[in-house]
């Protein structure tokens, strides 16, 4: 993790595809969590994450500023997730028609991905911080550095994100006076 995104992206663009592995290593957790939250299953998230990385690799020359790689990658993942969901929906519709069953199988969100689903619902700026901190294995100061934010803002953002997550997870025993930032 010593080299920044820019370095590896330039290496890839210079014809060293193998260096993309460091990028994958760096962001796989983030992307998996993000996609698991959106797609509701580990398998689907892995498939979509692979797809997102491959797309990112082949479109890297279109990335204007290597510093914004993370946001750009999340954008790609969002599009991939959308496509997968659409496919999934069509598939389910077909299944429904085939089985003449009125009960459409909803996307079975496994218990495990409730947390990720809640993260996926967070506003952009909160989501990025949570993903990087826990799924990207960054410390708060590393998150601050990567997103170009003051350290205090990162802890405040986390604090508000926790509140929102707790609300959406409706944790048992939640305190009444918990402040919720809309």
């Amino acid at each position, binding site marked *: 993790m010593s080299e920044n995104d820019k370095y590896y992206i330039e290496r890839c663009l210079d014809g060293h595809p193998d260096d*993309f592995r460091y990028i994958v290593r760096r962001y796989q*957790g983030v992307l998996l969590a993000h996609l698991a939250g959106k797609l509701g299953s580990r398998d689907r998230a892995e498939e979509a994450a692979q797809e997102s990385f491959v797309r990112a690799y082949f479109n890297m020359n279109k990335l204007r500023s290597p510093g914004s790689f993370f946001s750009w990658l999340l954008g790609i993942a969002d599009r991939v997730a959308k496509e997968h969901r659409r496919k999934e929906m069509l598939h389910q519709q077909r299944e429904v028609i085939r089985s003449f069953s009125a009960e459409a199988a909803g996307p079975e969100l496994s218990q495990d991905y409730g947390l990720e689903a809640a993260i996926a619902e967070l506003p952009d700026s909160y989501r990025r911080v949570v993903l990087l901190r826990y*799924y990207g294995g960054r*410390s708060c100061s590393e998150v601050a550095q990567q997103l170009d934010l003051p350290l205090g803002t990162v802890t405040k953002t986390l604090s508000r994100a926790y509140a929102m997550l707790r609300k959406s997870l409706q944790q048992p025993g939640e305190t009444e006076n918990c402040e919720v930032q809309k």
Partner: protein
Amino acid sequence: MKCAECKESLVAYLEGLLAEDQKHAVTEHLKDCHSCQAELKQLTNLQERLVSNGKAATRSDLENQVLNRIIREQKVRLKAAEKASEGLKLRRLIMKNPVTRVAVAAAVIVVAAIGIYSISEPAITFADVVEPILTARTMIFDYIVGDEQTGSTITDTISGQRIRRVMANVPTMNMIIDLDSSKMLVLDDSEKTAAYVDIQGQVQERHQSFVKFLRHVITKIKDNHQELGEQEINGQKAIVFEATGPNERVKIWADPETAAPIRIELTLGQMFAVMKNFQINPPVDDSLVSMDVPDGYTLAKTDLDMTDVTEKDFIESLRIWAKVIRDGTFPDEISSESAMKQVPVLGAKLTALNLSEQEGTQMGLSFGKGMMFRQVLETGGRQCHYAGQDVKLGDASKAVFWYLPDGSDTYRVIYGDLSVKDVAPEDLPK
């Protein structure tokens, strides 16, 4: 410290980001405040969950899977790019000046006439899968001679005795072949020129024999094919048949329900061809296969003699290949696949030689025509052998090619100086 202040600091406290005195203040406040303790507990629970989920997500082996996909995808893209650039190169060369345009066109016409049509006396049987091909009055299909990935796709539209042929890498060049009159009309869409070519003789026989081949197949359908079971091809279920003759092997993939052909692979001697994208009995507008010169096209005068292909033509094309294309050395191999690949190179060399239009045409034509001679030998199961790799043009001591003519006891051997001798089988070069 007040509760509100404490709660605000809890995240920084958990992250270990507080200065000593602040940390101390929070610790002291927590000792007595149940509300803040509960808050801390909640936060710790959530954070632990995040940490453990985060660890699980990071334990994935996406890295290798992603890299493998990238490598696979890159290969496919490279091949497609190569193919595109080959086609582009050829197109550019053809458009560049009239000499190469005509010469290359001449060579392309002839080389493309080779191909799967060079089937002689098939000793093969198939299943009912060829029935739709046989009874069809019109048919459209693609075929590729040589490597499916790098070879050029040729599309044939067949309507009765007429064939319209387009090569994917020269899309502005259309050939319409009339089997009844043994004539070919060549249309160049980019220059709006048209030319008639007489194809009586071997070229015509080859085209006829394809039709004959199909008829022949139908009569023998039930005899001697082998069923290889079901396979999936391009996401489609197919039933597969294979038949083998002394010099040919045919594999057919067909729709298991309708028996419509999906893909046919032909191996004839050393030549390999794939046919696919079949359309059986599609509507074909008569104008597509009309032998009349379309409005707005100028009829070019040609005297392309395509009526006979001899050993002399073959020697001439060997000479062109060695002298013009390869600067004095015979090629490594002379398959029709490699001949088709050499066409753009020949075009470039002819441009460099500054030949007249007439000379350029002649050379392009001779090259393609001579190559047909070898095709006749090879696909006819005649014994022949090419040994010209690394041989210099003019080297009389080395044999480049030999073959056994029909009904002959002795071989014809062509040497590096392009002289020919009759040689008994036991005296052939090892």
